[in-house]
């Protein structure tokens, strides 16, 4: 047996574990005379085993005494980990996830699709300055809404207006939408008519009013046309 054989075979460890055959033991002992390194290895191993035998009983007894506390701690940590899965918290978390998923998978694609696609809307001709009863009734649905013509060239319109404002009033008379457009001017042949598209989500059963006002250059506002119509929702 040479040094590399002794190392490869873990001769020192097997010697201490009493695993060497009589022949292997004799070879190893003979090798020790010529190998200070293996001699040191064996002595260190023997010293370790000697001291370990003294200390192990106390160490094992100490471990056994602390083990139940450690188990409890682990149970407490597990409980802490499972705090995230308590019904109340889990319910909120899942509801939030569901909402996010629904928005991203259903709502946003539908909105995107609606914005990017041409669509057909019922077009209802209005008559301005209607007095008394007999308003136009328009059937609308939530999906399509309604498109209404707005004429800027009413009898009270004037070419001196720099811009026009269009106000939409709901059945309660509350202003729910307003916008302004620049005056198209008669000379360049621009259209005096606009289309007001009201989405279905804004509509409900009842009487709506569109008020068109001219805005002079100095900011003075004057009503030009007033359209009153009845909305009847189909859905």
């Amino acid at each position, binding site marked *: 047996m040479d040094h590399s054989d002794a190392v490869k075979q*873990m001769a*020192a*460890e*097997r010697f*201490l*574990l*009493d*695993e060497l055959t009589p022949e292997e033991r004799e070879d190893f*002992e003979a090798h*020790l*005379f010529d190998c*200070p390194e293996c*001699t*040191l*290895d064996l*002595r*260190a*191993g023997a*010293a*370790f*085993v*000697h*001291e*370990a*035998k*003294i*200390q*192990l*009983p106390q*160490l*094992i007894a100490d*471990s056994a005494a602390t*083990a139940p506390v450690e188990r409890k701690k682990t149970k407490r940590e597990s409980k802490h980990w499972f705090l995230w899965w308590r019904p109340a918290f889990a319910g909120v978390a899942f509801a939030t996830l569901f909402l996010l998923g629904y928005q991203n998978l259903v709502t946003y694609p539908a909105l995107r699709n609606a914005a990017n696609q041409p669509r057909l809307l019922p077009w209802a001709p209005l008559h301005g300055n209607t007095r008394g009863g007999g308003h136009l009734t328009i059937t609308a649905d939530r999906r399509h809404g309604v498109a209404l013509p707005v004429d800027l060239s009413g009898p009270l319109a004037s070419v001196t207006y720099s811009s026009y404002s269009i106000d939409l009033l709901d059945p309660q008379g509350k202003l729910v939408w307003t916008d302004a457009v620049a005056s198209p001017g008669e000379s360049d042949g621009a259209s005096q008519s606009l289309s007001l598209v009201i989405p279905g989500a804004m509509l409900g059963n009842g009487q709506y009013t569109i008020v068109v006002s001219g805005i002079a250059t100095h900011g003075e506002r004057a009503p030009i046309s007033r359209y009153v119509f009845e909305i009847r929702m189909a859905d």
Partner: protein
Amino acid sequence: MEGRPELASSADDAFDIAAAGQIQKKVGEILLGLPSRDRQLLKAVFLDERDRDEVCGEFGVDRAYLRVLLHRAKQEFKTEYVKRIGNPTGFGVYSKKV
């Protein structure tokens, strides 16, 4: 540590006694660094002197595991051992058989 056998040393001077104390401390550190199962395994093999195969079967390990466990502990201990004991050709050297 009164009343406890000390590791034999080549001389009885204070330095050797201190060295023995350091060795005891090092062995304690190595044992504490082992999993509880490995400590119990070493106790069963070296202190209780139980049959190796029976112990390995009980702990669910093989003989190679036992050898590697001892090897690693020994290697970790050897550095401290050499530092404290000094000349490795001191006491306990095998004398050549004639």
